[in-house]
C-alpha cells in the first residue's frame, strides 16, 4: 500500500490547497514511485524459476535410458571403441565424475554460452543449430499469433457489444474450432487444400532446391508455404481470444461509466472502443504477453504436421535420436522465452493497470 498515500482529510495549514492538490494529483504522484518490494519479489521468483528449469533440464537426460553415443553407433557402424569413448568425453557423458561435479560443470558451460555439440547435426554447436531454426518458428508462429489476437479481440468486442444478436453464434463456432486437436485440423487442411485442390504445397518452409536468400522469388515461396500453417494456427487459437474478450465486454458493459457515457449522448463507436473495449482488453493483453512465450514451444505439432524446419521439429528429432545436448538446448530456449514473456506480461500489466501495483506492493 505504499504506492498511494491516503489523502489527508484536512490540509495542514502550512500547505495551501494548490500544493496538496486533488486525489488525482496524489495518484499521479504515487504512480511515479517505484514499488521496489514488488519488483524484488518478482525478480526473486523469476530467478528461482530459472534455476528450477535449468536444474530439471540438467537431470532429464540423466534419467533417460540409453545414451546418444549408443544411438549414434547404431547408425554409424564404422566407429572404433576408442572413438566412441572420445565422443563420450566430448559430450560430457563419461560417468567418472560425481553428479555434483557434472552439475557445476554444466552451469559453468551454460554461463559461457556453451550448449555443447549436436550429434544429430554432424557435431555442430547446439547454439548454431537452434539459431538456424529459431527465425522460422518465430516468424511464422509470431505472425499467426498477432493476427489471431487482433481478429479475436476486435471480433470479441463487437460480439460482446451486439449481445443477443446472431453474432453470438460465432462463439460456439470458434470454440468448436479450438477444441478439435490441432494436428487433425492441419492434416485435414493438407488433405483438402494441398492434395485435393492443389492450392498450397505440402509442408516445408520453401521449395526443394532453393537456398535462403533475400529475393522476391524466395520470399514468395516462403509466403506460399507458410499460408496454410499460419491459417490453421489462427483458426485454432481464435476461439480463446474471442471468448475471453466477449466475456470481459459483457462484464464491463454493465458498469455505470458505460451507461453514463451513453446517457450523455456520446457516439456509440466512442463508447464501444474508448470506454468498454479499452477496459475489457486488459486481461487480453496479459494473456497475449504470455502467449508470446508459447510461440517458441507451443507449436511442435504444427511443425511436425507441416514438416516446418523450426524449433519444435528440432526437439522432436532430438528426442527420437536421444541427442541430449540439442534436446537440453531446445528445452532451455523454450523455457527462457516463456520466462521472458512472463516478465513482459508483468510489466505490461503493472503499466496498464495501477491497481495491480497497489495490491501487490
Amino acid at each position, binding site marked *: 500500500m505504499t504506492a498511494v498515500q491516503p489523502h489527508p482529510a484536512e490540509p495542514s495549514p502550512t500547505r495551501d490547497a494548490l500544493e496538496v492538490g486533488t486525489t488525482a494529483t496524489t495518484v499521479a504522484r504515487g504512480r511515479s514511485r517505484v514499488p521496489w518490494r514488488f519488483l524484488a519479489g518478482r525478480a526473486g521468483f523469476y530467478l528461482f524459476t530459472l534455476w528450477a528449469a535449468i536444474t530439471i533440464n540438467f537431470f532429464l537426460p540423466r534419467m533417460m535410458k540409453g545414451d546418444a553415443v549408443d544411438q549414434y553407433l547404431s547408425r554409424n557402424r564404422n566407429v572404433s571403441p576408442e572413438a566412441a569413448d572420445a565422443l563420450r568425453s566430448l559430450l560430457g557423458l563419461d560417468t567418472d565424475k560425481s553428479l555434483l561435479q557434472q552439475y557445476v560443470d554444466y552451469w559453468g558451460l551454460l554461463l559461457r554460452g556453451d550448449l555443447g555439440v549436436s550429434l544429430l547435426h554432424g557435431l555442430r554447436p547446439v547454439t548454431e543449430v537452434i539459431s538456424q531454426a529459431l527465425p522460422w518458428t518465430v516468424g511464422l508462429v509470431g505472425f499467426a499469433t498477432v493476427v489471431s489476437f487482433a481478429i479475436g479481440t476486435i471480433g470479441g468486442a463487437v460480439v460482446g*457489444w451486439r449481445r443477443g444478436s446472431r453474432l453470438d453464434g460465432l462463439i460456439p463456432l470458434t470454440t468448436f474450432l479450438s477444441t478439435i486437436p490441432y494436428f487433425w485440423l492441419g*492434416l485435414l487442411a493438407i488433405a483438402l487444400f494441398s*492434395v485435393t485442390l492443389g492450392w498450397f504445397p505440402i509442408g516445408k518452409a520453401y521449395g526443394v532446391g532453393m537456398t535462403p536468400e533475400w529475393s522476391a522469388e524466395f520470399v514468395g515461396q516462403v509466403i506460399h508455404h507458410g499460408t496454410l500453417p499460419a491459417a490453421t494456427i489462427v483458426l485454432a487459437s481464435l476461439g480463446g481470444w474471442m471468448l475471453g474478450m466477449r466475456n470481459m465486454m459483457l462484464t464491463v458493459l454493465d458498469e455505470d461509466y458505460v451507461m453514463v457515457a451513453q446517457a450523455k449522448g456520446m457516439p456509440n463507436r466512442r463508447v464501444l472502443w474508448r470506454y468498454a473495449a479499452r477496459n475489457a482488453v486488459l486481461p487480453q493483453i496479459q494473456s497475449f504477453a504470455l502467449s508470446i512465450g508459447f510461440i517458441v514451444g507451443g507449436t511442435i505439432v504444427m511443425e511436425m504436421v507441416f514438416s516446418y524446419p523450426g524449433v519444435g521439429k528440432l526437439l522432436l528429432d532430438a528426442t527420437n535420436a536421444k541427442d541430449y545436448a540439442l534436446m537440453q538446448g531446445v528445452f532451455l530456449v523454450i523455457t527462457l522465452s516463456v520466462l521472458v514473456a512472463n516478465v513482459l506480461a508483468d510489466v505490461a500489466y503493472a503499466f496498464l493497470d495501477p491497481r495491480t501495483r497497489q495490491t501487490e506492493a
Partner: protein
Amino acid sequence: MTTDLRTEQAPQVRTGPTAPPRVTVRARLGSAFAMFRNRKSITGLVILGFFVLVAALADVLAPYSPTQVDHTARFEPPSAEHWLGTTHLGEDVLSQVIHGTRGVIVVGFLAAIMATIIAIVVGVVAGYLRGWRSESLSALTNVFLVIPGLPLIIIVASMFENPPLVLIAAVLGLTGWAWGARVLRAQTMSLRNRDFVQAARANGEPLWRIIGHEMLPNLMALIAASFVGTVTAAILGLTTLSYIGVIPVNTYNWGTILNWAGAQGAFRQNQWWWFLPPGLCIAAIGVALSLINFGIDEYVNPRLRSAGERARAMRKRGLDVNDPVTAVRTTTSAGDDA
C-alpha cells in the same frame, strides 16, 4: 444424467420419516450440482455420458476385435459389414474407434482427478496459510505454470520404452494442475477474510472443518471448472502424443488410429472414413466439455447469460440495447425486476 438421477430421488427424500436432516442433505446436493442445472451443461453431460457408456461397453458394442486382420478387405470404404470402412490391414475402423474411447476416457479422467486433487491441496493450503509457506507453495505453482508442458511430456514419455496408460495419465496430471491451483488460491485468499470464515475461526472450529465445510462448498464451481478444463487438456495431450508417436501405438486410442492413418497416407489418398471419425470424436468430447464449462461460467458470472437474454427481450419490444435512450429504460425495467 446426474440431474435425472437426483430428481428421481427427490420425492422419496421428501416423504421420508426423518425429513429435516435429509432435506439439508438434498439441499446440499442440490447446491453442489446447481452449476450443472442449465441447458448447456446438461447437453454437455449427456454427450460425455454417451462416450463413457461406449468406453464401458466397448467389448459388447464393437462388432469386431480392433486388431482383427482381414486381408481380403483392405482400404474399404464404409459398407454394411464395416460401417466405417477398413484400414490398410483390413481392421474395422468402427471397432477401433469404440475401443479407442476407453483409453481416452480413462486417461482423461485419471489425469484430471490427479491434477484436481493436487490443485485443491496446494491451492487451498496456499490460500489459507500466510507468510513464507503460502509464498513458497505459490512459487511452486508458478514454476509449474511457466515450464512448458508439451515439450516436457515428450521428453519424459520418451524415457520409457512402453509407458502404461496410468503413467501417461500421471505425467499429464502432474504437468496440468498449476492453473487450477492458482485460481483456487486466489479465491481461497478472498474467502479467508469473509465474515463466516472469521466466525467459524472465532468459534474454535478445527482447521479441517473450516476448509472442508466452510470453504470447499464455496469453491465447488471453480473446482469443477478446473476439473473440466484439465480433462480437455489431458485428452488433447493424449491424442497429440499418440499421434506424434511418443506413446506406443499398440494401446488403442483415437490418437493412435490417426497415427496409423497418417503413416499409411490416408490423408493423401482421401480415405476419409479412416481419419474423420476419430477426429470428430475428439472434437465432440471437446465440445461437450466446453459446454459444461460454459454452463459453469454462466453460473459463476450470471451476466454472461443475462446480457444476451436481456438484449433479446428488448429487441422483441423493438428496442436496441446499445441505443442511449433505451439504456435509460433498461435501468427502470431492471429496477422493477429487482
